[in-house]
């Protein structure tokens, strides 16, 4: 059970990489990037999980529990990463919308004026 979350996280990253490298539709590429991001977030959350740990809120916490508090850094990282992910996904999708307006297609094989 211990390594299971990490396995799932890496599977998500690999699925996302596969999508990003081999799919031809711009929207699917965005989905691929999103999948990798979800995998990384899961990885960070799994890193921060401690069995029987409690949230590091000192107010009203019994002193006996103080050594079971978890360090909140991974959660803070994940939260930041989710916000950044939202921004990148939105930006990528808006570029896809404008590209569709210009070329009338989302197929990367037909959107390739920039070569060489």
């Amino acid at each position, binding site marked *: 059970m211990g390594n299971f979350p990490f396995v799932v996280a890496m599977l998500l*990253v690999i699925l996302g990489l596969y999508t*990003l490298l081999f799919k031809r539709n*711009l929207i699917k*590429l965005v989905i691929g*990037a999103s999948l*990798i*991001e979800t995998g*990384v977030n899961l*990885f*960070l959350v799994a*890193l921060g999980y401690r069995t029987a740990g409690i949230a590091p809120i000192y107010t009203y916490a019994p002193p006996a529990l103080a050594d079971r508090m978890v*360090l909140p*850094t*991974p959660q803070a*990282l994940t939260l*930041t*990463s989710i916000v*950044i992910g939202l*921004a*990148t996904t939105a*930006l*990528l999708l808006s*570029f*896809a919308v*404008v*590209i569709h307006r*210009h*070329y009338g297609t989302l197929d990367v094989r037909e*959107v*390739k*004026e*920039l070569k*060489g």
Partner: protein
Amino acid sequence: MNALSVHAPVLLVATPLLAAFVVPLVAKLGSTVRNAVVGVFTLLTASLAGLVAANVLAGSGAPSVYVFGANPLNLTLPSGMHVPIRILFEVDGMSAFMILITALVAVAATLYSFSYFKEHSGGEMYYPLLFLLLAAIFGMEETGDLFNFFVFLEIAGIAACGLIGFRPWRGRSQEAAFKTMALYTLSGLFVLIALGLLYGQHGGLNIAYLSSRVGAGMLDLVALGLLVVALGTKAGVAPMHMWALDAYGEAPAPISAVLVASSQASLYGLFRVLFTLFGAAVSVAALGWFLIALSVLTLFVGVTMALLQKDIKRLIAYGAVSQIGYMLLGVGVGFTTSGSRPAYGFVAMQGGIFHMVNDAACIGLLFLAAGAVHRASGTRDLNRMGGLGHDMKWTAALFAIGALALAGVPPFNGFSSKLLIYESSFAASPILAAIAILSSILLLAVFMKVFQAAFLGPRLLENVREASRGMLVSMLMLAVVVVVFGLFPGFFVDKLVTPAAKALWLGRDAYVRAVLGG
């Protein structure tokens, strides 16, 4: 004054960040007020950059620490802690050097943008994105915390892609922006995985703390590999340079110049990871030769593909990629020898680092001149230009200065740094020096061709007008840097480059001590 000086590192990031949110508001009052505010904020940012750099260089490049929320501000380990918990900025000679490059490019690009975007609407969105990009670049160069670095890296990526795709009526710019953003996202996530691995092992994200803890364990090496790949990609190192061509080629001209500074900030991150974070933990020779191989590939790809280009900005973009190869070659030779520390290793470091500022100035100048050419002639196709020198004498002269400097012709600045690189890479292996010199000669050939095609010959286009005064002044500013750095290289190497090279090559212990004490 003293308080300003003490808080300058954080103000350097806060000022452009504030500007990014103030400018859209004052833009409601008309474009004159907006430009005035943009100008004031840019000058303010540049002066703060100068102040930060002057403070650090006055201490001959020793790292100075700014801890957020601590009292006093350099208290890194309060009340018996062993791990630095707070986020901190750590500015040493190398950071100061990078900050100065960014400030130079920022001032030139902003001044140029005033004229370049005069007839376009959308300035209330353009300048905020530019300021966000600048804030993020300064942050990347100052931070002493890896996660903080990641956040600034992502802000830089998002702002940069917003600017690359800033002209949505051009389909190609959207294509470039999408590709760049996809690669930026991917490399950003690689950095985040590496951070997760390092945090999981050592329980901290402070660079100095991690530097004292990392070893040559499997997971640490995976993290190092991910960081090298991701930051190399963002710096535009071959074989992951494709985004750079599209981005530099399709972005508005002043943004191409700022993107060069942003790529260099990623390169700075790579150097920081190699020298400061992993410098004592890994076998430097193997990794160093890997970097040298990448740098030679970058040089080769940049120069040979530039020969084939017909689009003036895309051609300069290839030139920019090849210059990244020179920096990586110099610093790669320095890294390879950082175990035994022979004298030529330090010369290689100086050459590679000195080339960063020279590249920012001359590539920036070329991009700005190409923008002026595009604006005047309405085309970027070299086959359809010709004889522009008749009507654009100043632009032609400035372009020539940039091109000669890029090709490493004396007395311009490209020559002085390339000479250091040739000399030291010859000591490492004569083949490297031969490749570096050959690339320079090919670059000269390429830019002779461009200059001839665009500026010489009979007039092919009617109604071409010289670039406006604002554009010329900003180009002149970079050209002055190109010439002055070329005429007095010894002075600048002593004052700016040597502290930076020392901070990377020899400064790891001082960097760690500044945070962990002892």
